[in-house]
């Protein structure tokens, strides 16, 4: 890989690292130097493990750029000529089902439910962090406990409800369910972010005669903006990835991208490049969002417990 040439972000950190290492070596000579040598070995080990974990994804990307016969060979064809046929096939350029309706459904469901989650979670988190209600930890634990209630526990009644009300295969039902899926996490995350907003600022705004909605929108939201963005990102990722609800409650019209992908489960041999292209394209929004906010991702997924 050509990583050594693109190593821009790390150059400064490495410069500091080597400088610090040099200082350490001069201060305490022998054991430090032994540690340094072993440290280099452990660095190599980290690189190898990193590449090993990334190998399946790199191989998926390479396969998506091969022709179907080149993709399905044993031994693997490392150096076969590259083509965009897999992507053309996936987007249905040469006939076949177009993935666009599914991609649009996923976008609508993820964005709409994320917006709804923020609208519901922000005031709730405010009530739980700035002016704690009595027994507020009980309320927080209630939200967390709903996250531990497995999806399958409510699947059948929801299916029957949707069938009887004509909401089956309707994207807005998914929006509501994704909102309930992400709301507990969002309340927990935002509660921990809002707890860092200084109470004095809020009290000052109230003394100036501002009402609650104004305080939330003008005072609290701007201070907590990075935390709100991280919450939104995680809700978006979970909604985009969801399969079980979408699989059971949608059909032709409201099919989402993961459901579209399940069409490849039994496809055999000849469509390997297409499968890889599809998997990469559909994972792209999550990969981009996740790389952009690596630290926030952990903090959010651990419900704010890890800072």
């Amino acid at each position: 890989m050509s990583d050594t040439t693109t190593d821009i972000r790390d150059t400064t950190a490495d410069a500091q690292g080597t400088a610090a290492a040099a200082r350490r070596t001069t201060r305490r000579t022998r054991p430090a130097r032994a540690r340094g040598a072993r440290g280099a070995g452990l660095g190599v080990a980290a690189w190898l493990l990193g590449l090993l974990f990334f190998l399946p994804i790199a191989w998926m990307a390479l396969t998506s750029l091969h022709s179907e016969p080149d993709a399905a060979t044993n031994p693997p064809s490392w150096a076969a000529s590259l083509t965009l046929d897999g992507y053309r096939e996936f987007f249905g350029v040469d006939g076949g089902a177009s993935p666009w309706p599914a991609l649009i459904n996923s976008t609508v469901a993820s964005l709409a439910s994320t917006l709804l989650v923020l609208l519901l979670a922000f005031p709730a988190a405010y009530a739980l962090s700035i002016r704690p209600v009595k027994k507020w930890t009980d309320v927080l634990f209630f939200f967390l406990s709903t996250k531990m209630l497995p999806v399958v526990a409510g699947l059948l009644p929801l299916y029957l409800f949707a069938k009887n009300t004509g909401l089956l295969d309707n994207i807005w039902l998914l929006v509501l369910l994704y909102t309930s899926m992400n709301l507990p996490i969002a309340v927990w995350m935002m509660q921990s972010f809002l707890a860092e907003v200084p109470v004095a600022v809020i009290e000052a705004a109230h003394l100036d005669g501002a009402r609650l909605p104004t305080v939330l929108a003008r005072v609290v939201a701007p201070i907590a903006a990075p935390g709100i963005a991280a919450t939104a990102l995680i809700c978006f990722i979970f909604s985009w990835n969801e399969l079980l609800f979408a699989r059971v409650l949608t059909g032709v019209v409201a099919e989402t991208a993961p459901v579209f992908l399940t069409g490849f489960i039994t496809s055999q041999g000849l469509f390997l490049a297409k499968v890889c292209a599809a998997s990469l394209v559909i994972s792209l929004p999550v990969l981009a969002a996740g790389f952009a906010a690596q630290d926030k991702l952990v903090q959010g997924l651990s419900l704010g417990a890890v800072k």
Partner: protein
Amino acid sequence: MTATTTAPRAATPIRTQGTPNARLRAWATRAPLLPALIFMITVTQLPFVATLVISLLDWNSLYPDARSFAGFANYGEVLTDPDLRRSVWTTILLTVAVVLASLVLGLLLALLLDRRFRGRGIVRTLLIAPFLVVPVAAALLWKHVLYNPEYGLFNGLLHYVGGPQPDWISDTPLLAVEASLVWQWTPFMMLILLAGLQSRDHQQIEAARVDGASDWQIFRHLTLPHLRRYLELGALLGSIYIVQNFDAVFTITSGGLGTANLPYTVYQTFYQAHENGLASAAGVLVVIGSIIIATFALRVVSSLFREEVSRG
């Protein structure tokens, strides 16, 4: 809150508790919480109550007229039917194996990444990638691109060594599903544990080193106790998600070859076998299993949040 409290009625005696004013005030404080609370109760608790009711019925949706009350017969059937009982066992095996393996691997990677080395940021980014691939896409990748006995990457690489070329999914189905999940969840554990490592007290470690403590002693007596909360948190969150895993089982084996876990079984029982009562009983059992995990979980999380609780 100011909206309701700025106009106290003159006749109201101002006492601290129980006066209409105080009650109004309390409700005003709770008000912002209510929309979220009502929404959650409606969308998650009501369906679960319905599941509880249906689990007591003998109800196959293909024969809607034959619906009748069955008591706990469905639970009896779930726990005695060999297939269903096997899925309970599979769920436990899958969850425990994946959580433990990804925790150990994640710890190893976190320890490596806690050190400075050239390109650390890139290695971290490479390691996070598996967690960011859409779960269905990741499962398809393992099923078709890696495991395929004829042209999968694994057997392709074995070709150079000249070893046997196993049919991974048929030969070791559960292990195949577990391996793909470990690949997906190790980065998550690594990130949590890395955050834990970086919050250590470095002066304390430096002091121990000056006193002649070996690396192993520092790890055993300083790092590991400090990491305990983070290990517990990782195990807890991993368990919650992996107990409920549907995507990998559905995609890689379609629940065949003894890999059907409870979520997949519930899905299949009502979606394909149309046995509503039986499916609901299995669903309730998943909930009971989750409650057992959650009981441990809440203890762990309470200790994690104890400092914040003092604020209230």
